[in-house]
């Protein structure tokens, strides 16, 4: 009998979280956290080399609530495996980055591990009930991370984040109910299985199809977030502690994108008016790309700029998804993976600048390279990756999305290219030029460079970004197989 690898990945961080919560000293908490978060990474790597991405793999399935057809079912395929890899890379590195945390450390590391539990659960669930539970479970640790370790307006930001995303989840839940009961009414067999319910969707009554589709889409787009449902994000990001921002941007946003590929993509061709849906989603995507970039350009606070850049970059995911071409769908998945790594570097840089210079206002900074050479180097790498420099992972993703989408959505691609890319380059370069280069602002006083664990964490991330920029195949092939399966299953 083989080991239940995915369940282990969920249970080990959970145990680690409990150990961290009850640990008495800071050292106990942080070493427990780092060990508990690295074991899932080792498991993922082991699984990765044996993965056959063309089908659901290492499936575990047990009856949970037989009366309602609810199962405990987990598994991975080409869509979810890279995201699980991403989660298991990001969480240990975030914990390493936050090794110097001093405030209520046992809770801090415990909550980060709980995020890992929730995120892996979302990416591996094969049952809608489970999927929803894990989806909600990710909210609570983040609420605490923001409201205990957050900035000056943490109360407002935490509650806004919590309620806004909770409402979106509830709307999604209603859509899940409708899926379930419409299928139940058709067959008489209760079943919450995701693939089964998504497969049943094509045979539904047209009257209910669009409601279900848009309700689910709303749930996912709020999480991404896409304009106009993005307003919770800047507040949450700006007030969250660095580790919280990193997890939020690198992992929680990816849950929305994952929902698009896993749930929405197979349904999209079966909506009553597919071309209308594509138009709506493409407009949302392009507006997110362009408007997000312009918002980022207008920010004075470096962290807020990075937060808006996330909206812009996640717009590419939506655009790649809706173009329905294998190349750009794979590219969109790759963008999720790549943005997950790059955004970590950006938020970590903001955190170090805040910590060292006590401000993140771009105009108040300046010449930090003299005091923070190591940070400047790593941060420059991150910023160049984020603006899409060839040779880095972000370029591969955005290039393939646009190259694929131009065949089906060329108007939108043109708008995205002309409205978005130049502005994206502009805000990245201006920000780093003003903040890090030029004359040092003496008012900042004594500024230290980063600690060693912070440097190791960011350097690993940067190396990964470069590695996946030069050699995307290892992840790309897996995603491509996943994308092909979904697209073929949806008869596109």
């Amino acid at each position, binding site marked *: 009998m083989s080991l239940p690898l995915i369940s282990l990945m969920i249970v080990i961080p959970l145990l680690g979280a409990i150990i961290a919560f009850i640990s008495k000293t800071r050292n106990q908490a942080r070493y427990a956290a780092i060990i508990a978060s690295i074991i899932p990474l080792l498991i993922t790597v082991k699984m990765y080399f044996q993965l056959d991405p063309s089908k659901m793999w290492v499936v575990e399935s047990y*009856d*949970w*609530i*037989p*009366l*309602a057809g609810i199962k405990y079912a987990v598994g991975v395929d080409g869509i979810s495996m890279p995201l699980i890899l991403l989660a298991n890379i990001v969480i240990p590195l975030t914990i390493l980055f936050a090794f110097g945390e001093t405030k209520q450390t046992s809770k801090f590391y415990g909550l980060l591990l709980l995020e890992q539990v929730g995120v892996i659960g979302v990416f591996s669930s094969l049952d809608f*009930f489970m999927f*929803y*539970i894990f989806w*909600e*479970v990710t*909210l*609570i640790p983040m*609420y*605490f991370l923001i*409201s*205990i370790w957050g900035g000056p307006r*943490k*109360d407002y930001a*935490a*509650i806004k984040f*919590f*309620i806004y995303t*909770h*409402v979106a989840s*509830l*709307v999604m*839940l*209603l859509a899940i*109910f*409708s899926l*379930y*009961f419409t299928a*139940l009414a058709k067959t008489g067999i209760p079943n919450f299985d995701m693939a089964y319910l998504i497969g049943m969707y094509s045979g539904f009554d047209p009257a209910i199809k669009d409601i279900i589709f848009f309700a689910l889409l709303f749930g996912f787009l709020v999480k991404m977030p896409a304009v106009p449902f993005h307003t919770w994000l800047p507040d949450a990001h700006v007030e969250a502690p660095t580790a919280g921002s990193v997890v939020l941007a690198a992992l929680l946003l990816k849950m929305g994108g994952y929902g698009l590929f896993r749930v929405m993509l197979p349904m999209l061709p079966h909506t009553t008016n597919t071309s209308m849906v594509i138009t709506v989603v493409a407009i949302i995507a392009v507006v997110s790309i362009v408007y997000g970039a312009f918002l980022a350009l207008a920010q004075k606070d470096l962290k807020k700029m990075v937060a808006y850049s996330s909206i812009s970059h996640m717009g590419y995911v939506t655009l790649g998804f809706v173009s329905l071409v294998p190349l750009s769908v794979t590219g969109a998945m790759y963008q999720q993976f790549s943005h997950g790594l790059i955004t970590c570097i950006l938020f970590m840089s903001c955190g170090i600048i805040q910590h060292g210079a006590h401000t993140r206002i771009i105009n108040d900074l300046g010449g930090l390279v003299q005091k923070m050479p190591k940070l400047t180097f790593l941060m420059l790498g991150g910023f160049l990756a984020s603006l899409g420099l060839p040779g880095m992972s972000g370029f591969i993703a955005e290039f393939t999305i646009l190259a694929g989408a131009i065949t089906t959505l060329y108007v939108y691609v043109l708008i995205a290219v002309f409205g978005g890319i130049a502005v994206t380059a502009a805000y990245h370069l201006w920000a780093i030029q003003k903040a890090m280069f030029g004359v040092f602002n003496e008012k900042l006083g004594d500024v230290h460079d980063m600690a060693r664990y912070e440097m190791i964490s960011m350097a690993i991330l940067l190396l990964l970004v470069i590695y996946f920029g030069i050699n995307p195949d290892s992840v790309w092939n897996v995603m491509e197989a996943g994308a092909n399966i979904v697209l073929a299953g949806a008869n596109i």
Partner: protein
Amino acid sequence: MNYSPLIPELIVVLVGLIVVFFGLFLPLRVKKGLGCISALALIASIVYILKSGVLSTSERAGVYFYEAYAIDSLSQFFKLVFLAVSLIIVIASIKRYEDNKYQDEYYGLLLFATFGMMIVASSNDLVTLFIGFELASMSTYILAGFDKTNPKSLEAAMKYYIIGSVSSAIMLFGLSLLYGVTGTTNIEGISAYIAANGIADAPGIAILVFLIAGFAFKMALVPFHMWAPDTYEGAPTMISAMLAAGSKKMGFVAAFKVFIVALIALRLDLQSVFFILAIITMTYGNVVAISQKSIKRMLAYSSVAQAGYIAMAFVIMTPLAVGAGMLYILSHAFMKSGAFIAVGAVTHMLWTKNKNVENADYLKNFAGLAQRAPYTALAMLIFVFALAGIPPTAGFVSKFFLFSSAIQAGYISLVVIAILNSALSLYYYARLVKYMYVLPPAGETLKEPRAYLLAMLIAIIAIFAIGIYPAPFLDWAMNAAATIGM
């Protein structure tokens, strides 16, 4: 005839009598033992019900006393709710009232109240139902005023008593009309009579109005909820827990029996009335809860709101909805009693430090509770997140099935309002969590009394058991729903 299914009731009432009798002679220092005996009696009854297997079948296990008293999975399910709530309250009270010389009466009354609720759960006859209702009410009227030196407690008891008696009278009038029309007090007899002969509009509507007013008072549905916040705030916290988690459910079981079994012919009118009541109740409860300073009052309004969710079962009236409503009732019993016990623990700890603390249950006293009393704060956190319906707790599972049943039956507008309410409630629950976990402590560390912790632990175990493995509980609830023809 096999009378063994009646053993739980017998245990409760006999131990109640024993406690009151021996309380007359025992000195104060050993009276604590009476609480322990009461707790053991409740545990024994719970174990008996669980082992009897009635819960896992929808067949009736027995009918007694000229068809006035029935044992089936509905009755046993609700008895489980009442007994569990009483058990949690008795355990916490052992600490709360250890120095009180009237504690024998307290435990006796608690057991009699529980007995009354059990009678209601099993009654198959309007008269039996009314007697059980009054026994439970009378006992809780006295208990609400048990802190005799506290004017707030006396006010609470008085208010509860006056409004309670009036609504009992209204309910009794409704029941007598029902008897007058159908010529029988047997619930199934009424159902059969109406099915055969129909019921004219005039008496039908009058009966419905009177009965809804009577039951909705106990269920604390808006606009019959006025007594609830004042009483819950003023009454001893344990008794608030009893009223919110136990006695309120008595209103629901009575309503299930009378409305769904006897008056199913008036289904359409019932649905439209409860549609409005449910929406008003949940919205009003949540909106008003936001502005409360007193946690007990906040929990009172949240309990009103939760009654609104449960009342959705009367609107939807499908098997899944009624089953989910029952599951919600079971979950709510643990969540709400746990939350009140946690408030009780905090006030108790503050009072042992300083006898003259005023408004001990106010939000400001919860600041930094996570550092002052970490276990109580963690328990409270779990209770409020369960009340808000966050997975993986009982609150989530109950809401999941209840709201899904509404979707199944096509009540989209109802469920959208319920979900918006659920999000609204998150605000005041999260605010309490913020006070406990984010704000700096309002004083030094407190010593957490063990009896309270045990009571809260039981509630937490139940909340997670239902939340993580709901299958058996859902089975029981669906069986209970099946016994009333759902």
